[in-house]
């Protein structure tokens, strides 16, 4: 037993992990790699290569992100941002993604940009730009006559522009094989291909109104026109949206449209001139809201298709068969009319075609050949949210089938339902996150109140109150004692995180998304969504601010309305109606309860606040305005930048920005006093090719400091931040005179009360000052660094008391990461061109180096690809060492950072087990040795006297 204990003790001395921070990944941070809302036509299941067993879920989202998601677990395998390389496109550009089974290639199109990617790992195969043309449609050629099955498939793309062009692009290189120009001025609509022909469908404006559908057949080998015919559809087709479907890559491609009253469905099998008309049997009494056609896209599949009708409250569908030989279309069967919404999807298994119908209560699968239901699964308890569209994959084994469907819900979630069970949900709506805030838990509120009571009572009264409070606390003792063994056990066995919950390090985050929904993310559980609620009354909103109170949060939208939510459940507690359009929200927090004031577009506070205080606002005409809180008629001051400059950004010190020391102790132990004022505003104004940073005093509107840079590329990101007694900014600067530097620059400026140590400037030892009467100017020390990439956003870490070293949080859009630069590295007093003296070394200064290389250890996002971050927030915790960081924009990323190491927390290397075992071993040793020693002592006494 002793040997075992000794071995155990020895074993626990070995550090548990040698790579220090590796084990903290996924423990202190979480990341939602999001794609955005999947486009209906560009989402599908696909086997990435012929040899792979499972298929992956591919999508090109409306945010122009192309990605592959593993259907098991729902995590992202790879993604590519197409809008990075494409020229800026308008929002209604087509997002097209096509793929063919067994080729390991995807072809995507966005605006003028065509690219091909490997399906397995998302690597670029080829890309091609067609300036002044936009891709209208895209198909992969599935040629039957090609020998065997080619590993690469050529692309046929239809371009709109001055003239419509059909191009066949090589599957390996993306080079044009042939072009077919159509200069008739018709609207290029879609292309479709059969095994022997390429069909180019365009809309020909008729002389009266409406469009005729023109079908041009092209030879796929050389692009020559083989035949052309026009379908008389001008009475039905009023715009491109009127055509319901142009069949792509089926054995018998077809065009479907409906008449304007939606009473008849018209179908033309491409290549024939015959248009068949079917009456739509609408017995619901409601008008049909939409008609959607679902058809299989694979060449070998049966030529069946499904037409989905939707009215306000019911949905039904009809299945049609196309006879390949005669080219005639016949209705096969109906799918019953059901209340509520339905989402249909098509899937193939070899030649068989299956239609999957998802309703709010169940999933059903039917074969295209007959109306018998092959599989029916009821969904779990809460009725499913409305699905807008879905894709499915059906596997059949004998008579039974299994299905998994990825449904895009109206709330922006992407959900995988496997045989009626929800496997995973991706909250893609979080890509449109507009504001976020940490929840303030109300557990401590009662205590705070009690302490306030004690503070206001007399000494004896307060003492009695306290004794009573503690006596009351004793009622929790039995519970506490009951939970004690468990707590001890868990604290020994598990990681520290569960024990630190009380220190505010796992506060939930509220995120308000563009689609009017509010999400609560649980930091303790990898950022899982705890609840979500539709807080906006409209479909979308523009959130200006989230302000949290203990237990609740108020969200302010730009129309002046606000919603108060219960922070723990998401229940809407209060709603205030829209008033005036606001551009921002000011929070006046002097005295007891904070007062919020909306700031109108022109910079005028919407309300008057009684009490002291000043508001500083931006107006839409590009000036900074200062207001006395009690007067919103006339600004107290107005700041306009120099002529030709326009304000692009304004920032102030964070509302929670504690300063641990008011001076900086130098090596010789004298003090350089910091210029600390909560009323500093840093204004960024850009000119033609210059940028100016104005440091303003917000009370008097005086300019305290200006820095001007020429040769600046103002299209590149310019970021700035101000905190404590320093500010930092970055921009791209070119060489104007030979001493300048060219490249991305990061400038740090520190403000001091005086250039002389031990001097507090003109105000001397005065304990307060008025900005209006006598405001001294700061002594500014600056240093500039060259950095390797642009910074799009800056923030500063916040801790409870500001003792911990601050980090400058920079968002790097090129590297898709967030870097935290420690402030000591950016000290503006680093000696230039010489080694530091002994005194400077004592201060921690080291030699200035103009190039600032981002250390790998500074990357808070480490290996993660955190894309599209627009805002980074930081909040203190109860632990001085720890700060919470939350970044949102496109992705969601959060981390718990310790800029000066976790000095107030026992680390993982601290082995509680070892400690306990040591104590136990020592106790046993004492217990064994004590009687022995006692016996020996008695013996010595007795034996000596005898």
């Amino acid at each position, binding site marked *: 037993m002793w040997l075992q204990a000794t071995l155990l003790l020895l074993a626990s001395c070995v550090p548990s992990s040698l790579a220090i921070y590796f084990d903290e990944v996924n423990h202190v941070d979480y990341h939602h790699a999001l794609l955005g809302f999947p486009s209906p036509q560009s989402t599908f299941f696909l086997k990435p290569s012929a040899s792979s067993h499972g298929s992956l879920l591919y999508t090109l989202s409306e945010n122009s992100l192309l990605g592959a998601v593993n259907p098991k677990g729902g995590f992202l395998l790879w993604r590519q941002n197409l809008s990075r390389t494409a020229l800026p496109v308008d929002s209604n550009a087509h997002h097209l993604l096509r793929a063919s089974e067994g080729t390991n290639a995807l072809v995507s199109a966005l605006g003028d940009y065509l690219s091909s990617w490997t399906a397995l790992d998302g690597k670029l195969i080829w890309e091609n730009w067609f300036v002044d043309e936009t891709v209208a449609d895209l198909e992969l050629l599935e040629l039957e006559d090609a020998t065997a099955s080619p590993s690469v498939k050529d692309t046929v793309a239809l371009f709109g522009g001055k003239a419509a062009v059909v191009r066949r692009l090589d599957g390996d290189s993306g080079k044009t094989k042939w072009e077919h120009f159509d200069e008739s001025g018709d609207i290029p609509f879609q292309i479709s291909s059969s095994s022997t022909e390429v069909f180019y469908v365009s809309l020909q404006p008729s002389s009266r109104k409406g469009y005729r559908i023109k079908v041009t057949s092209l030879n796929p080998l050389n692009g020559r026109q083989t035949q052309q015919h026009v379908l008389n559809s001008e009475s039905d087709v009023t715009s491109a949206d009127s055509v319901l479907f142009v069949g792509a890559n089926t054995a018998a491609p077809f065009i479907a449209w409906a008449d304007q009253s939606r009473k008849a469905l018209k179908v033309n099998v491409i290549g024939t001139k015959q248009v068949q008309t079917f009456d739509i049997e609408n017995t619901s009494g409601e008008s049909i809201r939409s008609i959607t056609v679902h058809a299989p896209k694979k060449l070998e599949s049966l030529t069946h298709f499904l037409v989905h009708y939707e009215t306000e409250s019911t949905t039904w569908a009809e299945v049609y068969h196309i006879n390949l030989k005669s080219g005639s279309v016949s209705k096969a069967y109906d799918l019953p009319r059901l209340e509520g919404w339905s989402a249909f999807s098509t899937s193939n298994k070899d030649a068989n075609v299956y239609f999957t119908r998802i309703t709010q209560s169940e999933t059903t699968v039917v074969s295209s050949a007959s109306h018998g239901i092959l599989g029916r699964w009821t969904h779990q308890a809460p009725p499913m949210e409305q699905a807008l569209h879905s894709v499915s994959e059906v596997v059949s084994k004998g008579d039974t089938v299994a299905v998994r469907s990825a449904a895009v819900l109206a709330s922006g979630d992407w959900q995988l339902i496997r045989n009626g069970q929800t496997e995973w949900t991706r909250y893609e709506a979080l890509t449109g996150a507009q504001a976020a805030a940490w929840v303030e838990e109300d557990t401590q509120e009662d205590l705070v109140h009690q302490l306030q009571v004690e503070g206001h009572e007399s000494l004896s009264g307060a003492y009695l109150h306290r004794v009573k409070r503690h006596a009351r606390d004793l009622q929790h003792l039995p519970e506490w004692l009951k939970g004690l063994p468990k707590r001890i056990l868990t604290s020994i066995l598990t990681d520290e995180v569960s024990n630190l919950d009380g220190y505010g390090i796992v506060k939930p985050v509220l995120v308000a998304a563009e689609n009017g929904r509010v999400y609560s993310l649980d930091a303790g559980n990898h950022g899982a969504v705890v609840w979500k609620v539709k807080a906006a009354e409209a479909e979308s909103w523009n959130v*200006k601010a989230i302000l949290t109170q203990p237990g609740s949060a108020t969200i302010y939208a730009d129309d002046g309305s606000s919603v108060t939510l219960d922070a723990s459940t998401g229940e809407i507690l209060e709603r205030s109606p829209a008033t005036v359009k606001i*551009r*921002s*929200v*000011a*929070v*006046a*927090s*002097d005295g007891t309860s904070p007062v919020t*004031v909306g*700031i109108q577009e022109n910079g005028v*506070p919407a309300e008057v606040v009684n009490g*002291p*205080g*000043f*508001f*500083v*606002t*931006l107006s839409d005409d590009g000036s900074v305005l*200062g207001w006395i*809180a009690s007067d919103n008629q006339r600004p107290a001051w107005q700041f306009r930048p120099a002529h030709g400059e326009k304000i692009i950004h*304004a*920032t*102030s010190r964070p509302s929670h920005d504690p*300063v641990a*020391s*008011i*001076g900086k*102790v*130098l090596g*010789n*132990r*004298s*003090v350089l006093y910091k210029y*600390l*004022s*909560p*009323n500093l*505003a840093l204004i960024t104004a850009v000119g033609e090719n210059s940028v100016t940073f104005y440091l303003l005093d*917000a*009370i008097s509107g005086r300019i305290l400091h200006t820095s001007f840079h020429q040769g600046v590329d103002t299209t590149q990101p310019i970021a700035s931040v101000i905190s404590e007694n320093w500010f930092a900014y970055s921009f791209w600067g070119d060489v104007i005179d030979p001493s300048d530097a060219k490249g991305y620059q990061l400038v740090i400026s520190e403000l001091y009360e005086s250039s002389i*140590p*031990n001097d507090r400037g003109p*105000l001397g030892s*005065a*304990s*307060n*000052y*008025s*900005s*209006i009467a006598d405001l001294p100017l700061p002594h500014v020390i600056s240093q500039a660094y060259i950095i390797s990439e642009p910074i799009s956003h800056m923030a500063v870490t916040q801790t409870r008391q500001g003792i911990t070293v601050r980090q400058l949080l920079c968002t790097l859009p090129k590297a898709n990461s967030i870097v935290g630069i420690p402030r000591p590295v950016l000290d503006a007093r680093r000696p230039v061109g010489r080694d530091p003296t002994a005194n400077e070394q004592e201060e921690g200064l080291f030699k200035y180096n103009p190039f600032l290389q981002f250390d790998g250890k500074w990357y808070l996002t480490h290996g993660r690809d955190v894309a599209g971050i627009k805002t980074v927030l930081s909040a203190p915790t109860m632990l001085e060492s720890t700060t919470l960081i939350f970044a949102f924009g496109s992705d969601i990323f959060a981390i718990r950072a310790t800029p000066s190491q976790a000095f107030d927390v026992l680390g993982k290397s601290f082995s509680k087990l070892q400690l306990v075992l040591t104590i136990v071993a020592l106790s046993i040793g004492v217990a064994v040795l004590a009687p022995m020693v006692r016996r020996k002592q008695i013996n010595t006494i007795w034996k000596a006297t005898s």
Partner: protein
Amino acid sequence: MASLPLNPPPPPQWVVRMNTPMPSLSKDASSIPDPPGYAKKMSAKNQRAQQSAAASAPAKPVETDTLKVKKAWEIALAPSKQIPMNAIMMYMSGNSLQIFSIMMVFMLFKGPIQGLINTNAVFAKFDTEGTHAKLLGVKAIYVVMQLGLLCLGVWKVNAMGLLPTTRSDWLAWESERQPLERAYFAFG
């Protein structure tokens, strides 16, 4: 109350033997010649001791006082001999805050302070009526010497940066200058 034994036990054998003087040698025994190499000096030593005792006995009290004062001076000046040694040790130990240098500084303070407290006790044995006036000067010098050692300690503590003599030592007690006005920003 513990009862005492009525008769004290007889003293042990060795006490009795020790208390009884050595019996004089018998004539026979004294006639035995000493072994070669043994010099019987006992008597000579005794004689000399008796002589010196006879000489010191009549010494005058003035001389004793002079001697005492001389002895007291020696004690008073003793700390001055420590100063150079301590100075070198302090210089060598460096100004960093380590357990070794802290202990040395502690000893440096402990010695002089104890010495100062015990000033009178140290010179008590030399204090007679005749030397009393002269000892005052001696004590003063002793105190000065101890203060010298103390100064060395203070110098060392200052060199170690432990004395709050600079502005930075009082920085924590200085407060941030409060603005009278407060601005609320709404830059959005």
